[in-house]
């Protein structure tokens, strides 16, 4: 009993700290955006793209720190966006090699990034740096107000454009050929989706690190699909559950001193297992 009250006391104390509030806000926003886009990616059979892109972002970040750029996003963002556009639009033409293309770009960027960081040592502890970029550092707890504002602007853009294009997104995701045959601009929509995914991956790197960002993208959608049979329901469930898991993850990691990124992903995984079980029960009934 004592430990629980102690924990609650500690939580109360932490929640009065600005850095905890900022971490919660950014975590929630990134998780929300990732889950919305995740529904599209999972249903379009592009689950691996988030993973591939995060490795590319890692590579670009390594290059940026070697070049000693003041603002690393100047390099990371364009490189990631271009890769996303390439993977989503051109890999479709090389249909047979689509998944191979993602895998190739993904491990290629990872290797180059690690090589760069290792060869041109940027800090005293290279493996520590690499580890924190891959699995998310404590940097989520050192966020500035400007980071919060940046996340807020991005989240507003993502949510508003998702709402505006919602029905078109559904049509293109469900049956791209039908949409195209009706004269819908599917190419433009795909490019747009690719660009937004890239931005979210870059945003999410701070939160959970580049290895775990794809978990934020795919888990909420997969959980929703287990128990809900319509598109709108899956989208709403993903958005709500992903935000909830992010907040829970940040709080738990503070309480138990665990790594933030891995904790959030573990909560997402737990929810998925519950949903998968529920799905089995529902289908029997």
């Amino acid at each position, binding site marked *: 009993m004592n430990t629980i009250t102690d924990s609650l006391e500690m939580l109360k104390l932490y929640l009065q700290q600005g850095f905890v509030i900022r971490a919660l806000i950014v975590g929630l926003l990134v998780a929300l955006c990732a889950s919305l886009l995740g529904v599209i990616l999972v249903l379009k059979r592009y689950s691996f793209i988030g993973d591939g892109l995060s490795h590319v972002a890692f590579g670009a970040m390594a290059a940026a720190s070697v070049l000693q750029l003041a603002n690393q996003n100047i390099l990371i963002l364009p490189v990631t966006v271009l890769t996303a556009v390439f993977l989503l639009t051109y890999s479709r033409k090389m249909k047979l090699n689509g998944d191979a293309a993602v895998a190739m770009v993904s491990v290629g960027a990872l290797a180059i990034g690690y090589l760069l960081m290792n060869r041109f040592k940027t800090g005293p502890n290279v493996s520590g740096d690499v580890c924190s970029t891959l699995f998310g550092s404590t940097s989520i707890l050192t966020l500035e107000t400007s980071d919060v504002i940046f996340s807020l602007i991005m989240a507003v853009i993502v949510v508003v454009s998702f709402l505006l294009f919602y029905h078109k997104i559904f049509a293109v995701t469900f049956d791209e050929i039908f949409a195209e045959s009706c004269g819908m601009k599917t190419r433009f929509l795909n490019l747009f989706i690719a660009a937004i995914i890239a931005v979210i991956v870059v945003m999410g790197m701070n939160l959970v690190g580049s290895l775990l960002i794809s978990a934020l993208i795919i888990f909420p959608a997969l959980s929703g699909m287990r128990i809900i*049979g319509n598109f709108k329901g899956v989208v709403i469930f993903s958005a709500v559950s992903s935000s909830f898991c992010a907040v829970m993850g940040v709080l738990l990691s503070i309480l138990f001193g665990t790594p933030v990124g891995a904790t959030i992903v573990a909560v997402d995984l737990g929810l998925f297992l519950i949903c998968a079980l529920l799905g089995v029960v529902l289908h029997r009934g």
Partner: protein
Amino acid sequence: MAYLTCKDLNIGYEGTPVAEGLSFSVSAGECLVVLGENGAGKSTLVRTLLRLIRPLSGEMLTGDDLGKNEIGYLPQQTEFQRDFPASVEEIVLSGTLPKHPFSPFYGKEQRQTAKANMMLMNVYDMRKKSFRNLSGGQKQRVLLARALCATERLLLLDEPVSGLDPKVTAEFYQLTSDLVKNGIAVIMVSHDLHSALEIATHVLHIGSRKQLFYGTREEYLASGLGKTFEEGGASE
């Protein structure tokens, strides 16, 4: 004038012809059945008619004020994902999008169109159900309702009865034949000669990379071509 007229159409990918010299037309109230064995160029023709790829040469003209993209497409079943979460209503409503490209939300008119077509295809009662839990025949009726939302004039059905059992196939053909009687033009791609011919008014038969026959159903039956196709099909 016909809704769609093709003159000396050569189709294929990146300069390599798949089928050549296709000339045919479809008008209101006609059902054109496109026959051909695997590899004859049926899928390429479908993609060309949907304007996903350009014809290599020849003309493809629309008439009677039919819009260039005004074609209701019923894809092959195999192209769908088994676990896609979508309700019947969501799918049928998405068929109304091409007529209202700039509105972010579904208007009253779109909802009414969707409702009318769901009633017509007898799927209105299952509108809240998930598409992935429907039977093969029910899925086809839902997709037909969606195609009808996109246009009430020209439908393109790609192997619509493959994988359906005989009873459901007969029901589907009955529905299609009713639509044709009501003045809709239908192009139906099929490799199943027997039952498809029952509702055909015209036949286009492609094989060996060229047009073997185009004419009315009666002319086709008299030509004896159907017989050789049937024998060829049986030996597959």
